[in-house]
């Protein structure tokens, strides 16, 4: 039984954390072959070969695979699928874009955002914004699965799997990349950060959101946001934590000026310690917070930043 794992590669660079967590998730399913593809993927393939617990790395480099457009990437994975019983990936936007397409081409269901592997055909996944956990058994001959990385530890480095170069398949030519608008950040990446500080509507303005960023910097944390903060333009959309944004489970999550709507909790309620700072003592966030501070955030946050720096 063999597993093909689509490594997370962005602009030629391997996202080690997401990929290594998916390796852990897939480790009980069989021998893992990692697929690194992109316009440039050789360096990512080299980096991926060091993840412990994998058997082989396949590198597919082709201009058509740049930016991981769904149509050519899915075609490549389907061309390799014959040798594998499981086709898996970390549940990133790239994988969510490609894997369902792969599954339909193979006439099998996709199993999205798996939070636990029960056996080779049985998986647990959250539904209804994480308010229920469903265990499903696949009767399909091939299982196409994305893993919720926040619930798995990253596999260690120190391996040395062989790297093999393979060719891309014909590009269906249905789409082309135009441009990226990448939010530059030197803070830790949101989904892999050990500490996350998030701001919500209560922060009030884009200018005042700088206060959240200062607290984050004092803690060496990534910055998150609620939908309200993103919709109001206080923070970019890729900072959004929740059902439709990113799912995080850091050691410490600090929610500032966030009421704690169901959709936000879906993205952070597996954090180890949750701190809430809100002036409304009735805010639902206090029901999941380990430590709650009922206070005006404009006073509490600068004070907290000072005492932690």
């Amino acid at each position: 039984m063999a597993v093909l794992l689509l490594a997370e590669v962005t602009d030629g660079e391997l996202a080690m954390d997401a990929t290594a967590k998916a390796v852990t998730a897939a480790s009980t399913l069989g021998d893992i072959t990692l697929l690194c593809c992109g316009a440039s993927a050789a360096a990512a393939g080299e980096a991926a070969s060091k993840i412990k617990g994998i058997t082989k790395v396949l590198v597919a480099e082709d201009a058509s695979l740049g930016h991981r457009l769904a149509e050519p990437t899915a075609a490549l994975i389907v061309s390799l699928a014959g040798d594998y019983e499981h086709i898996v990936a970390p549940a990133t936007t790239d994988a969510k874009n490609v894997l369902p397409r792969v599954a339909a081409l193979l006439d099998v269901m996709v199993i999205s955002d798996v939070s636990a592997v029960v056996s080779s055909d049985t998986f647990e996944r959250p539904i209804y914004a994480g308010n229920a956990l469903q265990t499903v058994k696949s009767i399909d001959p091939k299982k196409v699965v994305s893993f919720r990385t926040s619930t798995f530890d990253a596999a260690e480095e120190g391996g040395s799997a062989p790297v093999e170069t393979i060719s891309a398949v014909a590009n269906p030519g249905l789409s082309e990349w135009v441009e990226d608008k990448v939010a530059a950040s030197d803070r830790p990446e949101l989904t892999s950060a050990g500490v996350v500080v998030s701001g919500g509507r209560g922060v009030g303005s884009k200018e005042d959101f700088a206060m959240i960023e200062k607290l984050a910097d004092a803690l060496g944390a990534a910055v998150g946001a609620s939908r309200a903060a993103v919709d109001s333009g206080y923070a970019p959309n890729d900072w959004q934590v929740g059902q439709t944004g990113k799912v995080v489970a850091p050691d410490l999550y600090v929610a500032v000026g966030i009421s704690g709507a169901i959709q936000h909790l879906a993205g952070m309620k597996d954090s180890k310690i949750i701190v809430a700072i809100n002036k409304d003592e009735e805010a639902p966030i206090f029901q999941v917070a380990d430590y709650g501070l009922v206070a005006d955030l404009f006073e509490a946050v600068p004070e907290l930043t000072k005492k932690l720096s």
Partner: protein
Amino acid sequence: MKVLVPVKRVIDYNVKVRVKADGSGVDLANVKMSMNPFDEIAVEQAIRLKEAGKAEEVIAVSIGVKQAQETLRTALAMGADRAILVIASEDVNTDIEPLAVAKILKAIIDEEKPGLVLAGKQAIDNDMNATGQMLSALMGWSQGTFASSLDIDGDHALVTREVDGGLQTIKVTMPSIITVDLRLNEPRYASLPNIMKAKKKQMDEKTAADYGVDVTPRLQVIGTAEPETRKAGEIVGSVDELVAKLKEAGAV
């Protein structure tokens, strides 16, 4: 160009769901149901395309139980021209899987020949985020997922997508399947006169069998459980106390 918009009837997004004590699923009896929020955004976008003269007809489709006709009436009241209801289940507890939904939608596309399908990026009940991509695969069409902006120009469209690191713009060949993200637009409310008018609009009723699609699930649900509840936290009195607690817990 016709635009096809699949809409799903789901539990209202504000409802706190309850898992049934016997683990057989989520309690959907006497719970408020609504149109999936992402699908409202898809309907809104389709209507805007019609208002901009880029679409001639907007067809809303829903697949599931008979009550999904209410969801279709909502789409009609927002401005869709007609609706197709595909009854695929007798029981509200049976969620038709994205693969079966995609196959039914494919059969409808073969009949209706739309130039564009606008779907929500995910349904807030099963959280699968798969139907649009699966449909695109079955059609052999291009896909533009998680769209936060859409600009159609003849035989192609520019789609700006919300991806992990920021935004990505791609150019897709039409016809295409576009799945919409929250930030694409703000859906309108249906006015009372439009709700009344919607009652007279055409709604065809079909079954999954009419399209020759087997809706048997590929994923058997073994059980549904409550997630672990967090143990009760405490309210601290001051920033100093908070810092002390966090230090004690080894969090800072």
